């Protein structure tokens, strides 16, 4: 069990930065990712949400899922297969929110399924950001 995580970790460096401040933890709620709703002043931007929406443990699970399950079609190294290549180079120019929407709702008429039944919106965004990041080989 621990070995699996380690193998995955050997391929990439886990990045757990940043996202915490970006989104409120709204699991599987509205169709579009919604930024944290502030009742008060714009100064709220300076006070990030207390807990990250995707816990480090869940990030490890998602990373495993990306490598193994997304890898079934896109290749373990994301260089493509039945699915398109989705390396950081291939995804340059996409915005993470758009990628997250594809992950959540799939691409009708293709083999890309909607993952919404299995992951939350913040998780999809985490995956999108993760895919776009250059990994250390």
């Amino acid at each position, binding site marked *: 069990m621990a070995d699996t995580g380690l193998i995955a970790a050997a391929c990439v460096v886990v990045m757990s930065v940043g996202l915490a401040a970006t989104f409120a933890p709204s699991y599987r709620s509205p169709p579009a990712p919604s930024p944290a709703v502030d009742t008060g002043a714009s100064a709220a931007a300076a006070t990030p949400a207390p807990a990250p929406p995707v816990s480090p443990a869940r990030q490890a699970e998602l990373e495993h*899922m990306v490598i193994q*399950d997304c890898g079934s079609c896109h290749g373990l190294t994301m260089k493509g297969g039945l699915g398109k290549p989705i390396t950081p180079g291939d995804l340059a120019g996409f915005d993470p929110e758009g990628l997250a929407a594809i992950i959540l709702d799939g691409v009708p008429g293709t083999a890309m399924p909607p993952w919404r039944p299995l992951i939350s919106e913040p998780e999809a965004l985490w995956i999108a950001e993760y895919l776009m990041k250059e990994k250390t080989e």
Partner: protein
Amino acid sequence: MIRTTLTALALIAPAAALAQDGSTLRGTGDLGVVIERATGSVLVVDQSDRAALCRVEGLGDLSHASLTFSPDERYAYVFGRDGGLSKVDILACTLENRIIQAGNSIGGAISDDGRLIAVSNYEPGGVNVFDADTLAPVAEIPMGSKTVGLADVPGSRFIVATWDDGEAWLLDHSADPANPQITRIPDVGANPYDALLTSDGRTYIVGLFGEKGLTTIDLWADPPAVRRILPDYGKNEPDLPVYKMPHLQGWTLAGATYALPAVGLHQVLWADAASGQEIGRTDVAGQPVFVTARPDGRELWVNFAPPDNGKVQVIDSMTHEVKQTLEPGRGVLHMEFTPRGREVWMSARDDDRVVIYDSRTYEKLGEIEAKAPSGIFFTARAHRTGL
């Protein structure tokens, strides 16, 4: 990880020494090869001892890898995602040769005379054919499409389906291996995702992702006769998401019926082999990936796409009912029966082990440590058409 590596080293030493000094003769009939998909390695396993003998490394990206055996059961030809074609000597436990033959490949086959290795490619598509001894290129057949379901057909022939164009191509290398005679079979259906050849070499069955139903091609007819089967299954039911494409290879005829995975439905479909008519369906625990008949055809063992990939169900081929639901491990990717069907070996990717069950009592008999194992291949495949 360190522990795993040490275990691996401990495994390699004795097996290599055994084979190289020649002091102990052995056959390969009870050996097998397990793909370790994330680490680019394969494990050579011994059925009789239910144990790993050694590990061979350096095979590249083995996501969706498969392999085929030489007629003498000594060499495994491993087809990797990264376009790699590796020839592994399972007796000496060495990587004898390796070439990168394309950008992105999906599977391969060996000709019935054991002389040619064909590989089907996603990038740039088509099929490449190599000399089985040297891996020197013999023929390149561009098809303008990703290719799936490559299988050997008796008479130095291969057949493959094209994902983008929905055709099947029959390649006959018997007269001139470098210039195969090509028979294109159009209108096989939208987006074939995999295909298989029945063990008699007669019927090529193509699974379709882009439309309902499957297509059978009778290769004993001249020209090959195309027939659509089960065209209406699930027509009035909403499609469920498919998180992993089903596979057809490894399947065998259960009695006089085809038992096939539905796509987008959590069902196994039954069709009469002679008429192609649907004769029933069995509700199962998820999107079926492999529907594999025990060698006697009396039972079918089914594994599933995520998130149901921790389960394996056993279906009685007489009653079509699920008789067992097993949970052999996390991330069960493949099942392989021992040649006479007594044991079934299953890879539990997320538990890093291969688990071995008695196929009659459903009791666990043993397990073998392996790194993210996927396909399990026993050498008896060397003598079966279509594998």
